[in-house]
Every structure is written in structure tokens, then in C-alpha cells.
């Protein structure tokens, strides 16, 4: 695994891996969507609108998971100075923000029939919103610093501070929700989930995970190629200058 920290090895390895992961992601997504939209039964309470769950729940889970991944990569980058760890964290951020946004939009769509409003200050949705801001902050710090080495380390600090705070934020938002709202509000998670709904959900989880891996690898390859192109430009400029 540590051999992969070498960009060249990573390029070779990822080039071979990428088609398989992307292919699997597309196939699983197709199957998952088919199961979710046509095979899975409608909910006895929520009716057809429950199908949003198959898009929403994996997105919400991945939005947190990707942030954890980003923080882990940042820690590796800070402690072990892996050349690829920074790139992995940087590449993951917009994907994570995408999942978060998707979770917010689908949550809002789901909320409309349930709450009669596009937005309710539900604990989970509110946490997602704060998470989206954390992603924005992380991406903004990459934008703001010109020196890539400095930016990488600053962003790593942001990610780590964020991940330490994330559980506190989640807890506090839950707390706030119970303080200010009666518990009678309909929650997202039902009681036990029936197997006929579980399977499509699991397939969707796998599809989302593979999609993340594929886009991550793609973005990391792009970053490496960009850096290569830049150093080529530099050496050409040097050659012309001397």
C-alpha cells in the first residue's frame, strides 16, 4: 500500500483499476436505482415518496464518511508527509460537498410531503447544512493560499479541527432540536427496515462508495498530471532562459 504513495506507481496502478471501479459503480447504480424505483415496495405510511430514501440515506452517510476520509488523509499528510495524502484529501473535498448537497436537496424534497414545507430545522438536515459549510471552508483555504505546500498544510489543519468538532456539532444540533421541538415530529428513520427495502439500500450504498472511489482516483490522476505539466513548463522555460 505504501508503494502506492509513489505517484508513478499510483498512476500505473490506478490506470488499471479505474475502468473496473467506474464500470462497477455504473452497473451497481443502475441496478440499485431499478430496485429502488420499481422493485422496492412503497411505504405504508409515506407511500411512493419513501423512494427518495434510497438516494438520500447513502448520500448523507457518505457526506460524513468522506469528511472522515479527508481528515484521515490530512493526518497522514501532516504526520507522515505522504505525497499522495494531500492530493487525496484535496480531491475528496468537492465530492464530499457534492454528497452533502445531494443529501440536503433530497432531504428537502422528502420533507415537502412529510412536513408540508421544503425545509424544516430537523437535526439531521441541520447537521448536514453545517457540514456543507465545513466543506466550503476547507475548499476555500485551498483557494486562498498561493503556495501549494502551505495550502496543503493549512487545509489539513482545517480538516482535523473540523473532524474533532463534527461529533460535538452533531450532538449539539440533536440537543438543540429536542430542546426546541416536540418529539412528535416524524423522523427519517422508521422502525426496523424490511429486507425488501434493505437490499436496494445496500446496493445503493455500494454504488455510492464505488462512485466516490472512481471520482477520487480520477481527480487525483488529474492533479498529478497537472503538476507534471507544470514542472514540464518550468523546465522548458528554464531551458529557453539559459
Amino acid at each position, binding site marked *: 500500500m505504501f508503494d502506492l504513495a509513489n505517484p508513478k506507481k499510483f498512476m500505473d496502478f490506478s490506470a488499471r483499476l479505474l475502468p473496473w471501479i467506474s464500470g462497477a459503480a455504473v452497473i451497481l447504480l443502475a441496478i440499485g436505482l431499478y430496485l429502488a424505483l420499481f422493485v422496492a415496495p412503497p411505504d405504508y405510511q409515506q407511500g411512493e415518496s419513501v423512494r427518495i430514501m434510497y438516494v438520500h440515506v447513502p448520500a448523507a452517510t457518505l457526506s460524513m464518511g468522506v469528511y472522515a476520509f479527508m481528515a484521515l488523509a490530512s493526518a497522514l499528510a501532516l504526520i507522515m508527509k505522504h505525497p499522495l495524502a494531500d492530493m487525496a484529501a484535496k480531491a475528496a473535498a468537492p465530492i464530499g460537498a457534492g454528497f452533502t448537497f445531494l443529501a440536503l436537496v433530497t432531504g428537502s424534497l422528502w420533507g415537502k410531503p412529510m412536513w408540508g414545507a421544503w425545509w424544516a430545522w430537523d437535526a439531521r438536515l441541520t447537521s448536514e447544512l453545517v457540514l456543507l459549510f465545513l466543506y466550503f471552508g476547507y475548499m476555500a483555504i485551498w483557494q*486562498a493560499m498561493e503556495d501549494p505546500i502551505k495550502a496543503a498544510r493549512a487545509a489539513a489543519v482545517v480538516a482535523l479541527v473540523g473532524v474533532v468538532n463534527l461529533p*460535538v456539532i452533531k450532538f449539539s444540533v440533536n440537543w*438543540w432540536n429536542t430542546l426546541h421541538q416536540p418529539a412528535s415530529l416524524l423522523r427519517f428513520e422508521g422502525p426496523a427496515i424490511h429486507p425488501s427495502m434493505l437490499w436496494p439500500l445496500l446496493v445503493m450504498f455500494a454504488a455510492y462508495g464505488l462512485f466516490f472511489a472512481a471520482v477520487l482516483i480520477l481527480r487525483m490522476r488529474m492533479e498529478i498530471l497537472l503538476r507534471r505539466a507544470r514542472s514540464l513548463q518550468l523546465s522548458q522555460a528554464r531551458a529557453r532562459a539559459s
Partner: protein
Amino acid sequence: MNSWTQMIVTQLRRDLKLAARLGGGGLLAVAFFVVLVTLVPFGVGPEPALLSKLSIGIIWVGVVLSTLLSLDRLFQADYEDGSLDLMFLSPLSLGVLVLAKCAAYWITTALPLVLVAPLLGVLLNLPAENYGLLVLSLLVGTPALSLVGAVGAALTVGLRRGSLLLSLLVLPLCVPTLIFGAAAAEGHMSNFYLLGAVSLVLVVVGPIASAAALKLNLG
């Protein structure tokens, strides 16, 4: 000799002296706080019952925003005139420096806000039994705001338009403090423990993260 405390005292005295001579910072934050809070009734209407209901939330949000207002200067002046380089090279560890600076900042900026808060409570028809709780919750919670803000200030020191970025980075992290603080002021007593816990955790995490950020920004 306990050099650790000695250095904190040295740093604290210097920052307090600078704040006293330069003036401005703390008073400006108080003025901003007052104007911000008086704007709210123009938006929501002057009904005493409504304002009373909103008062704690408005004051707490006002304190969060006012605290962050001048935080971007926390390390900026020392960064610009080269003092930060020399502090870095001194026996003073950066984490201790951050703690001392946050303490000075809290005394000069947050404390005046806490003292003004009850007066604003009058304007907003704050229920009588909440005055003490409000001040107490602010006293326990504002150190957390300063410490979280220090991390943002350390990250953005030396950046153009650093203050906007600072707000983006720090405001989401203020959510727990705001929730526990406002709830504590409402009279939910257990929130004082949570608020205190957040402040205490940040006394440790804040300086470590700020020191790491300062170190990389010196380079």
C-alpha cells in the same frame, strides 16, 4: 522558576498594554454589538412579547459575531512587524503564546461585550429571571469563541481578505457554543456543563491547532 506562567504573564501584560494604548478594538466590538442588536427590532417589529422570546438568541448571536469581528487582527500586527518570528524563536512555545493572546483578547473584547449584554437585554425585554443566567452563560462560553477564532486567525494570518475566510472557517465551529450558551441562558442548567466542557476542550485543542497553523504561515 515557573517560566511557563511567567511567559504567559509577560505576553498578557504586553498585549493588554498594547490594547489599552491603541484603544479601539474592544470599544468598536461593543459598538458593533449594540448597533447589531438594535437593528433586530426594526426587522421583526417592536412587539414586547416577541422580542422577549427572541432576546437571548439575538444577544448570543450578536456576541458571536462581535467576537469574531476583530479576531483577524489577533496575530496580524505581530505577523506584519516581524514580532511573530521573534516569538517563534524565543523559549515561549507557540501554544502558550496563543493562550496568552486569547486571554488578552478575551479581557479586552469579549468581557466588555458580556458587560453590555444586560443593557441590551433591557432593550429587548429580556425576562427578569434570565439576566444572571445570560451573563453567566456568556462568561463561560466566550472563551470558547475566542479560542476557536484563534485557530481561524492563525490560519488566515497574512492572507488578503483573510477576515472573510476567517468567518467562513470559524462560524460553523461556533454552532455548539451558540446552542449550549443560548440554552443555558434560557435556564436549561445542564447546558452550563456542556458549555464549560466545550470551553475546556478548546483550551487544549485551540492552542495546538493555532500553533500548527502559525508555524506554517511563518514559512
